[in-house]
């Protein structure tokens, strides 16, 4: 009975994460995007916590905390600051319209399902579903990076991608701590480096638009 319920809740949380990814994909204002990302991290934290509960693996609570504090609060705030400082709180110019992006997202989720459900059942269904969702989140994050022109939103896409990873990692029962550490570590480094870069970029150009970066080529045609 409990297994079943546990399954449903975990399933629900993971599904929510995918849903939130879709919201990110849909959202095209920077502030709103930040908030949605915070929500994303929140949901992640919840699902990780739940995993910790049902796997009664205490160290996962730590991961949940990291996700909650770090991703749901600190990073959004910091990014908010940067946006204000850079004065780029304007609309994000997306490459493809929201509609097509959503459709693409649907396709990706379907693909993720097809690929993952191939997995034979003796890898337990919970892990299987989780993986399927995680994969969709990863793909959606990537899609977001691809469809946004603005550096900040690309960073957000990247981080939601990493959320997908965390989801997968926690879904993997009994995975050694090394993974969480590395994830946290990677997010930390990622953030610092991005910060440095955005700072430098601020120094150099008046935009963090990646295309502006691309104008400075080693080798012009």
């Amino acid at each position, binding site marked *: 009975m409990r297994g079943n319920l546990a399954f449903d809740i975990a399933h629900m949380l993971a599904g929510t994460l995918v849903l939130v990814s879709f919201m990110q994909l849909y959202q095209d204002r920077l502030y709103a995007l930040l908030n949605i990302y915070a929500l994303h991290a929140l949901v992640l934290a919840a699902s990780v916590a739940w995993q910790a509960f049902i796997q009664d693996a205490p160290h996962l609570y730590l991961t949940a905390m990291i996700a909650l504090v770090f991703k749901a609060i600190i990073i959004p705030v910091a990014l908010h600051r940067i946006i204000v400082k850079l004065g780029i709180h304007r609309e994000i110019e997306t490459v493809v319209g929201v509609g097509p992006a959503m459709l693409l997202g649907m396709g990706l989720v379907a693909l993720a399902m097809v690929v993952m459900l191939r997995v034979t059942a003796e890898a337990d269904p919970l892990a299987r579903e989780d993986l399927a969702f995680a994969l969709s989140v990863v793909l959606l994050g990537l899609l977001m990076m691809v469809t946004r022109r603005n550096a900040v939103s690309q960073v957000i896409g990247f981080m939601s991608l990493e959320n997908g990873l965390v989801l997968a990692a926690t879904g993997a029962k*009994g995975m050694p701590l090394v993974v969480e550490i590395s994830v946290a570590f990677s997010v930390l480094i990622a953030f610092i480096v991005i910060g440095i870069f955005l700072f430098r970029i601020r120094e150099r150009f008046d935009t963090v638009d990646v295309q502006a970066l691309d104008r*400075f080529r080693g080798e012009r045609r």
Partner: protein
Amino acid sequence: MIDALTGVLLIPAVAAALLAALPGYRLTARLNVLAAFLSFATAVSLFIVEPQSGPYLLVDDLNKVFIVLTTFVGFTTAMFSASYIGHEIEIGRLTPTFVRFYHAMYQTLMFALSLALVANNIGLMWVAIEIATLTTVLMVGIYRTHEALEAAWKYFILGSVGIALALFGTILVYMAARPVIGEGLYAMVWTVLVTKAAKFDPALLNVAFVFLLLGYGTKVGLAPLHAWLPDAHAEGPTPISAVLSGLLLNVALYALLRFKILLALNPAAIAPGPLMVTMGLISCVFAAFMLYRRRDIKRMFAYSSIEHMGIIVFAFGMGGPLANFAGLLHMTMHSLTKSAIFYAVGHISQVKGTQKIADMSGLTVTNPVLGWGLVLGVIAIAGLPPLGIFMSEFLVVSSTFAREPWLVIILVFGILVGLGGLFLRLNTIAFGEPRGPTAPAQASYVPMFAHLAIVFTAGVYLPPALVAGFENVARLLG
């Protein structure tokens, strides 16, 4: 008691901390060389006494050679960068603080690379490669010119995406291993995985391999994941270009190989061969064509690295004892040759004060040693005898043509086109009427010629120990 294995990791780690603390360019440079040499010495000692491999670290035929290779190239590059960075400070492209940072990062990179090689735990390996990536990102951006920043940014974005994909793959491997091996650490320990790989869930392994191929393939620089590589090589300091081409690509490829072995051991899983062959061919031919329009000398050789990675991946993808042997040999030879070329290129661009091919000409007249060194390097990298790469290309082509004629013809076409591109530029760089500044280079030619000498020797004679190790690995790779 510290055995050689931990020594290889400890020395660079300590050195990194030390170099971060110590001021003064001369001292740090010397220290850097010293540390690199010490780790090289310890690595060599691995051949004499083979330490016990535990759940985190291991030594086997596959990584032994690469550890020695990595530490050796690290050592020679340190020597090279000592003279190179000195010149950079003189002309004021780098400030002492950045040099300190640079040296610390250099040792960190060495640490990460060695760790990636000796890691017995796929998670640990991933972490190591990630550290390596991040450090190189910082070093590529060190000049803080527009181009450098842009290159670093590009490298960073693409690299971290690659890292993420690789991590996902790693997790999937764990998921596949868990039902068989059971939860916990040992489901990520390489030596254990190998023994049980046959029983893993094939579908999971397949997905895992796709992610690992793309993730680590980004580091290897396979087209179409290569985009970071040319700019990172071109805009970073030349020692870093040497290390990138010579070591980082190898290490990433090494990680890929480990997982290929896993798949090879599982009969039900998708054959990794076709995927690798396809990507290899694409990279080889694509890079070969890209050589023709290059105006920046470092970018050109970066593309040639992509081409060779393509050849190597093709070889492993084809499989078979000979092709695998050739692939391993090619990895070794390429990293030695390419780093040697970058040593030459570094000094050349310092003499000429530019990296633009159009502005350098007649080097063999003005700086004979540098010029002929470059010519020799290009001859080696183009796969002409009697240097090492010819042997590996000979083995790859001749051993696979009977099996897959059309694919091999594509490969040969790529090789030929690449050769054409390389020599087209070499002719203008090394020969003809001299152009540009012709000051003699204050350079240490030792590293370059040491590498070329080794490559030459290997082209004529391979030591049996090396051969035995490679043959074991080749058999393992299937």
